[in-house]
């Protein structure tokens, strides 16, 4: 019964390239129907991990099962049941959106409805446009649709929004949310914190080939993030002792005239506002800085994501 709920199971997976250990004994389990995100800087071992699960590379040691099939023995069974958007995805330049989808559907011998796939990723206007004429975001959306031609149970998306502008990124995100609504399990690798935060049910942070932390985004932020920060702009320093009486830590920045409060609970915000209003202490603007996965990563590794990138 439990087995049926598990989409992917990875046990002590290792991949070495000569002296370099790209993936260093990682283990995790992914449940069906969730969006699982493998988050880490470039060079952390994300792509190596997915490509092992996609049966494109062989692990040095360790075991992994995709939908109950062994990656070292049942490649054909796995390939039939998964869909892949590879990193830096590309397809045939001078074939149209439709023709590319037809080609790959044909490779799987799949009779999927091409038009409904086109509709799913919102490319109806571009169906007869050649691939090379599409913008980056549209190309990625076609890539998502192409990962669905065989109606897979699991969809692997490797860095799906790398290099896209924010608008295009949100369009791809919408396509990914559509996959979850269809009941697909999604394996997403990304080095964008906000992408994992926006999409993932489970986030696994990978750093130098090892798993640094795993959990829902909220769990990770609560456990490893800093507490949220409230900034009151252009206020009086008398606010500081007032807030401290509430058992909260507060500092006055005399240059900017700002008071920074470290919150214990989100309900603290309304308490502070009520107290300030009661005492008629003015404040110009109020900003709530939530802790993010970026802080989680910094706390776990001592590096920011950018610093952690290996060339």
């Amino acid at each position, binding site marked *: 019964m439990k087995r049926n709920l598990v989409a992917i199971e990875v046990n002590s997976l290792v991949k070495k*390239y000569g002296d370099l250990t790209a993936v260093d004994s990682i283990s995790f389990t992914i449940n069906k129907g969730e969006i699982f995100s493998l988050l880490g800087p470039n060079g952390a071992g994300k792509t190596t991990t997915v*490509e092992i699960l*996609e049966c*494109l*590379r062989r692990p040095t040691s360790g075991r992994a099962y995709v939908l109950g099939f062994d990656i070292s023995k049942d490649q*054909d069974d796995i*390939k*039939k049941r*998964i869909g*892949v958007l*590879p*990193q*830096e*995805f*590309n*397809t*045939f*330049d*001078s*074939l149209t959106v439709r*023709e590319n989808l037809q*080609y*790959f559907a*044909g*490779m*799987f*011998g799949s009779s999927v409805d091409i038009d409904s796939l086109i509709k799913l990723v919102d490319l109806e206007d571009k169906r007869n446009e*050649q691939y090379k004429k599409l913008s980056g975001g549209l190309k990625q959306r076609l890539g998502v649709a*192409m990962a669905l031609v065989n109606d897979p149970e699991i969809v692997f998306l490797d860095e799906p929004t790398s290099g896209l502008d924010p608008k295009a990124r949100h369009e791809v995100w919408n396509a990914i949310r559509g996959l979850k609504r269809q009941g697909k399990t999604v394996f997403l690798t990304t080095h964008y914190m906000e992408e994992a935060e926006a999409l993932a049910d489970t986030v696994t942070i990978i750093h130098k080939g090892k798993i640094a932390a795993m959990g829902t985004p909220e769990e990770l932020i609560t456990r490893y993030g800093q507490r949220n920060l409230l900034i009151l702009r252009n206020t009086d320093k008398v606010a500081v002792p007032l807030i401290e009486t509430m058992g909260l830590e507060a500092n006055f920045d005399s240059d900017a005239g700002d008071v920074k409060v470290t919150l214990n609970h989100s309900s603290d915000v309304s308490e502070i506002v009520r107290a300030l209003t009661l005492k008629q202490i003015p404040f110009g603007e109020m900003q709530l800085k939530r802790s993010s996965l970026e802080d989680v990563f910094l706390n776990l590794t001592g590096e920011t994501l950018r610093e952690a990138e290996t060339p």
Partner: protein
Amino acid sequence: MNRVLIDLKASFKIFFRSKAAVFWTLAFPCILILLFGAIFSEMDSKYSLYVQNQDIVGGEPTLTSRNFIEALNQTGAFNLHTLDPTINVTGYALDKKLSYVLVIPEGFENDVSKANATIEFIYDQSQTSAMVVMGILNSVINEMNLGIASYPNPPQHFVVLQGETIAPKRFSFMDFFLPGMIAMSAMTTSIFTAVEISSRYRETGIFRKLATTPLRRIEWILSRTLYLIVISFIGMSVILMLGIALFNVKVIPDPLSLILVATTSMLFSGMGMILSRFVKDPETAGAAANAITFPMMFLSGSFFPLEQMPEFLRSIATVLPLTYVNNGLRDAMIMGEPQRAIMNTIIVAVLGVICLLAGAWITKWEEE
């Protein structure tokens, strides 16, 4: 098999949508043929012919010799140059690198009346047009003989052209050139397409995407090979049609020529796959393909007969696969000597299968 057909269909769509591919595969050989055709037919129309008239009586050339020279002039085939009757023609011709010299001997007119006249023709054997010039000279002399024969009360006196006799060979430059172009086109199309596709698909990640589908590498290579064979056949048909239509080339249909073109395509697709495996960067791989094919075209007798080349270059030709393609194609489709083409076909086929298998073996979709 279905996957092979799907891939083939897509490949042809991609080919016909690529202006560059269509140009290099189909239009470029045609342009070369027209260009070479124009150069050689231009040269065909006017040959420099040096004439030494020794048949002088009383300080004046005889009437018969003058008539003969006038007849030569009227063919429009020659630029006639007169040589001083006193010089040593053979030495002079060698010295000045003259290709064609005609000597009308002393007493020519007298000999004509005795039906025993000869004209000496000294020519450079290495000239491709030697046969043509000889042919024109012979026709002028025949004309002259007929003219004499049609006199009332014909003296039945004939003029004979004395030169080195060579077995009659009725092949034009285009007959020679066309098979060379077919071989060249099959070679370049196959090697460049194979290099281009292998390195670009690897670089852009299309191989990675294909590797995630049930398409097998062997199916893909089969499709690729069939595709290039068909494209080579299309190139061959275009070249042949052009040659037949514009240059009156007589082509003998022979299955061996089809086998030769198909195996040539296999040979060079395999070579392209091998190249792009070792030279990863697409531009460098293309340059390497150029470095292989370009000298091969010249050294294997695609454009010029091997017989004209110095000995050491001819020995290089014997190790170039394209030489066997050229020879085989000429024997099969132009000379009509298929039995001579069989050995060449076997050599090319064996090499083709070996190269293709090696290329297929060595081509990887994924890195490491």
